[in-house]
């Protein structure tokens, strides 16, 4: 029983980090029409930006702010310098996926070239350990969960109550129609790259805080979890991504408690395949 509760606690941490990344990824995909496989590489760039700030003697929380900015800037540059030129030439979506995969490798190996391939850690304490029932979490992990909840609430507020959020939803639903309604779709897309890039930088840093030791390739497997959460919840659906992150995070950790830990990702993806077979649009996607 205590192992079950402990694994639920671990699942909540994984879900919290995954939710920030998945929401950013799915918003980016919905509004920009780019399935950006370099998203996790931007997370890594954010994590290393925070590392640089931290190594310079500043708090990791200041580093986290720097990572937000770095993620936003890098994503905007990726869009303007790489993806937009391809889109203007009428490249097929699969071409953009391949281009984004190439960019992921360029960013990752670029970071590895500069920082080296070995693992690094932030200079920070994990705080005291909090025990509640079988749950065992550190103060820092509780802060990560709090950050994730704040981000989810912020995304909800952005999409529901702001003009920008409504414009993003309209652009995601039908870009041409949105333009005809007076929405400056190009500008909305640019801002979306910045917002989701910031979420990517944030996700990368909390991910690195959570795992303790990270290197330029640490987010590789995490990208697969992001894709699973996004497609489980319904691609392009922010709330679906939140739910998908919760399911994937909990299923990987709880399954690891009761079967060989080697299979924890297998369990998550079996759940995803089952969902796609029964309901291809995902948990919260529109029924087809």
């Amino acid at each position, binding site marked *: 029983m*205590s*192992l079950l509760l*402990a*694994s639920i606690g*671990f699942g909540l*941490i*994984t879900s919290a980090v995954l939710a920030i990344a998945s929401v950013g990824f799915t918003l980016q995909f919905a509004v920009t029409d780019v399935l950006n496989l370099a998203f996790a590489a931007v997370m890594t760039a954010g994590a290393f930006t925070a590392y640089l700030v931290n190594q310079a003697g500043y708090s990791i929380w200041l580093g986290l702010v720097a990572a937000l900015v770095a993620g936003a800037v890098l994503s905007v540059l990726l869009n303007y310098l790489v993806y937009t030129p391809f889109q203007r030439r009428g490249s097929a979506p699969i071409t953009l996926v391949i281009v984004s995969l190439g960019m992921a490798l360029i960013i990752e190996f670029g970071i*590895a070239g500069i920082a*080296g*391939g*070995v*693992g690094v*850690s932030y200079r920070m304490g*994990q705080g005291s*350990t909090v025990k509640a029932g079988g749950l*065992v979490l*550190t103060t820092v992990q509780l802060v990560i969960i709090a950050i994730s909840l704040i981000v989810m609430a912020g995304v909800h507020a952005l999409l529901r109550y702001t003009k920008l959020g409504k414009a993003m939803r309209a652009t995601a639903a039908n870009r041409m129609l949105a333009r005809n309604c007076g929405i400056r779709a190009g500008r909305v897309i640019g801002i979306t790259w910045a917002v989701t890039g910031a979420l990517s930088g944030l996700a990368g840093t909390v*991910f690195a805080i*959570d*795992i*303790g*030791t*990270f*290197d330029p*390739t*640490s987010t*590789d*497997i*995490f990208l697969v979890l992001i894709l699973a959460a996004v497609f489980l919840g319904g691609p392009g659906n922010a709330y679906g991504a939140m739910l998908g992150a919760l399911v994937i995070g909990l299923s990987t*950790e709880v399954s*690891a*408690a009761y079967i*060989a*830990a*080697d299979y*924890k*990702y297998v369990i998550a993806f079996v759940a995803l395949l089952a969902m796609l077979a029964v309901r291809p649009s995902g948990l919260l996607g529109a029924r087809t």
Partner: protein
Amino acid sequence: MFEHPGRTANRTARRLRAVSALVALSMAAALAACSSSPSTGAGASSHSTLIFADVAPFSGVDAALGPIYLVSCTGATNAINAAGGILGHKVACMSKDTRGEPADALPAVGSLLANTKNLELVIGCTSDEAASVVPLLNQKKTVMFCMTGQSEFDHVKYPYFYRLVPPDLAESYAMTVIAQKLGYSKIALAFGNDIGSQTFVQPALAAIAKAGLHVVANVTLDLKATTFRTEAAKIVAAHPDAIMTEALGNADPTLFAEIKQLNNGHMIPLIGTSAAISPVFYTASAKAVGAAQFAANFHADNLVTATSGPAYDAFTKALLAVKGKVSGAQTGNFTTYFTAPGAVHLYDGMNLAALAMVAAHSTDVAKWKPWIAKIGDGVPGAVVVNSYAQGLAALKAGKQIRYIGPGGPTSFDPYHDSPGIFQIDTYSPTGAVLVAGSISAAELRAVTP
């Protein structure tokens, strides 16, 4: 649009001749390239630079290994060059990244063999890639000093394969002896899911049973995973006295931090393999759980290496000369390299190879390879030398030599294995390696299934 059939036939014939000429030219070029390829070790042209290649992971989870070997290679070749080189040749190091994956290692070695002039020696070849690259290197008659402990090389003859490190199963037995000596009876195993780490598991299980100890948890760590919280919870719940582990990259440090978190801020004693004697491993682990707590709870088996004397002095001088100059080797306490198995034993391997070339008066591998065992194991009347410079001087004076480097004397078996004897290492809180004890052959035999 339409041409006379005869004209078309003539053009076709001309094209065929042109294509044939191109093919012939290409074949000639390829043959020329092959003949200039050094991989068969037919001997280098005078004053050309000989290459020692570090074939090992420089990226991926075992990325820390390649730079250790490169430090050793750069230090050894600098010392060789400072002594005048080998038969008028300078020596240089090059690195080939295998990414720790057999599938990546093969093309890397293929490219190394195809494109490297005067390739005389390969070092590295860890358990990650040895199974795929050793047969290829052997086929191409390239001498290699490998860092693999895989038991498949214990009794398979690869004439060009040499190993100065013990088989993995002997390390598993050594770890079990450490557990016994420290009074631990309940053991948890936590090994990575890579080939190199998994080879320890079955021998460890057998040795633990033979020693009358008990395995209370046995978890495999997916090295691509980012957290091991549930695995850590399983280990903590089993209340082991100690954890035997090898999971390189970020895995072990992450696991240690999570165990500490779940165990009320206390570490469970750890017993690592000799691969844990590396500055990168120490730095990451110390950051994860705190230097003092890590140092107080960590032991590892390691081969006995010199800590003083002329061999040690020459070795440390060679390595200190390249301190801060080798890419990827700037992390941690540099003195850890003085006992890191990869640094010590490959340094010895390179000196053995270099002295073998001098003794054979040739860089032709067929001529110098037989001298490796002669110089390593010694022949009656041979004078002991402890560095390349000493060996070179003795050979020039017409003496027979026996090289004994910082890794101790060698004793090659018919499979070119020269397993040493074990000691128990710990770390100081500053990352310096300390010798905490020794493991006798009798102690090792007592736990051998």
